[in-house]
């Protein structure tokens, strides 16, 4: 079984995003970038499927300019067999990403596509669902457990009321929640080996997808700042303030 894992290069999750002074966007110059944490979990899950003898080939794919090859090399160092960069410097929306990926799914015919449930920059939580729709596949979003057997994927999903398990007919699309697994670290020998693994570059234009923007970013602002609070001495003062000053309890 072939597994396709789309990954995204994003701001490192430890870095606090700064808004540009002209409010045009978030400032990403000289900011540390990394693989989106949910994508790391997707890569790990694919590699575990390979180690369990279920997956035969793991292909990592990323869409962006040359810089995203760094994250693809990371995926290769973690155990992916080959990588594909869909080269573009256009700013893309989830629908564009899903369409580009659907072309790749047509070409590669993976039985399973595993994506992160959302990227920590745009926080959209859309791409996996859109890809499933465009390829007419079943979807298992927010997965915290994936069991593949007998032509089906049994996916336990994190839903608001608890956990829901669904059985998906393969081929399927799965998106990962943080609790799915604990991603491994790449060892130095594996990082060295990853440099010799194949990394193909496909021009986004060659895939015949209309990448014209459909949403305009008018403005990016800092969120409203909260007023600095006060430190109270003890419980009695706290309760008193909540009753008389904040009036949130009676």
């Amino acid at each position, binding site marked *: 079984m072939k597994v396709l894992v789309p990954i995204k290069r994003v*701001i490192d*999750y430890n870095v606090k*995003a700064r808004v540009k002074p002209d409010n045009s966007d*978030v400032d990403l110059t000289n900011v540390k970038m990394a693989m989106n944490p949910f994508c790391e979990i997707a890569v790990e899950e694919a590699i575990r499927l390979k180690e369990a003898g279920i997956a035969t080939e793991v292909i990592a794919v990323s869409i962006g300019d040359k810089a995203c090859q760094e994250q693809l090399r990371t995926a290769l160092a973690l155990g992916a067999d080959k990588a594909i960069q869909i080269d573009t410097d256009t700013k893309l929306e*989830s*629908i564009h990403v*899903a369409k580009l990926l659907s072309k790749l799914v047509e070409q590669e015919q993976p039985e399973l596509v595993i994506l992160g449930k959302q990227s*920590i920059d*745009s*926080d959209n939580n*859309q*791409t*996996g*669902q*859109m*890809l*499933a*729709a*465009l390829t007419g596949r*079943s*979807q*298992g*979003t*927010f997965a915290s457990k994936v069991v593949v057997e007998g032509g089906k994927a*049994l996916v336990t999903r*994190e*839903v*608001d*009321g*608890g956990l829901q*398990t*669904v*059985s*998906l*007919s393969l081929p*399927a699309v799965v998106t990962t929640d943080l609790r799915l697994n604990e991603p491994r670290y790449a060892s130095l020998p594996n990082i060295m080996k990853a440099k010799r693994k194949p990394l193909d570059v496909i021009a986004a234009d060659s895939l015949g997808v209309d990448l014209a*923007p*459909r*949403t*305009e*970013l*008018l403005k*990016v*602002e*800092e*969120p409203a700042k*909260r007023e*600095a*609070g*006060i*430190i*109270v001495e*003890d*419980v*009695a003062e*706290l309760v008193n*303030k*909540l009753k008389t000053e*904040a009036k*949130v309890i009676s």
Partner: protein
Amino acid sequence: MSVLVIAEHEQGALKPETAKVINAAAKISDNITVLVAGHSVATVAESASKIAGVTAVIVADKPVFEHQLAESTADLVVELAADYSHILASASTTGKNTLPRVAALLDKSQISEIIDVIDADTFKRPIYAGNAIATVKSSEDKKIITVRASAFDAQGEQAAVAISTVESAADNTLSEFVSVEQTESERPELNAAPVVISGGRGMQNGENFALLNGIADKLGAAIGASRAAVDAGFVPNDMQVGQTGKIVAPDLYIAVGISGAIQHLAGMKDSKVIVAINKDPDAPIFQVADYGLVADLFDVLPELENAL
């Protein structure tokens, strides 16, 4: 302009998020239709028909919609889409699961988790874990939008409007519901509670979360947790407040033994009043707390319970 709102419901009851999504819808248009998709959902439809601003309720009642799986629900919404300029759902796990599928089937770009409506095309939404607020304008002729329910007030009530049923050809051969493991709780739902008290890694173990019970009972509060507490296995993950868990905005949020990582703040920093109880005076949570108490939570919690 007309808006289709997809009702959020569970176990035969309409969820409070729906009245909040309708508030967002009312800022777009005064022609609001609510779609109730499910099986045996007459009570849900009746509750929806009584929410102020709703002009019509349509019910799609069919076994294939019972668990609101994305594959069948999305096909249903696409069947109905022609009549609406906007399609809205709550940014709950159900809405997030289904709506992007709808958007792709209609070949539209989706706008996720709006927190404000500027006009029928322009919306505000948080990005980068809430560290920035983007104002975005959609050029799509049909807008597909999920709404962060905690950012909108619930609509009031009205005299019930007409409920009609809709036949759907939607089927689902792709996926099947297997089981659900519901977390049982007698407390108010986290997303809707006026008061939330949350514990973090400082609680040390799951048993100590019982220290929050008495306080929650007295305040009518829901109990939440930080990601650290969930990851350490203290409490189940549907109690998690944060970017990757639930987003809450209660009147009062009490953070106990929570340091205040970006991921947690993204889920609660729009609360009206924030109280932090932590023994580390340098914990980042104190930078957003209206009232901070630097003390050992094991000393303070029983005291707080008695004082209420």
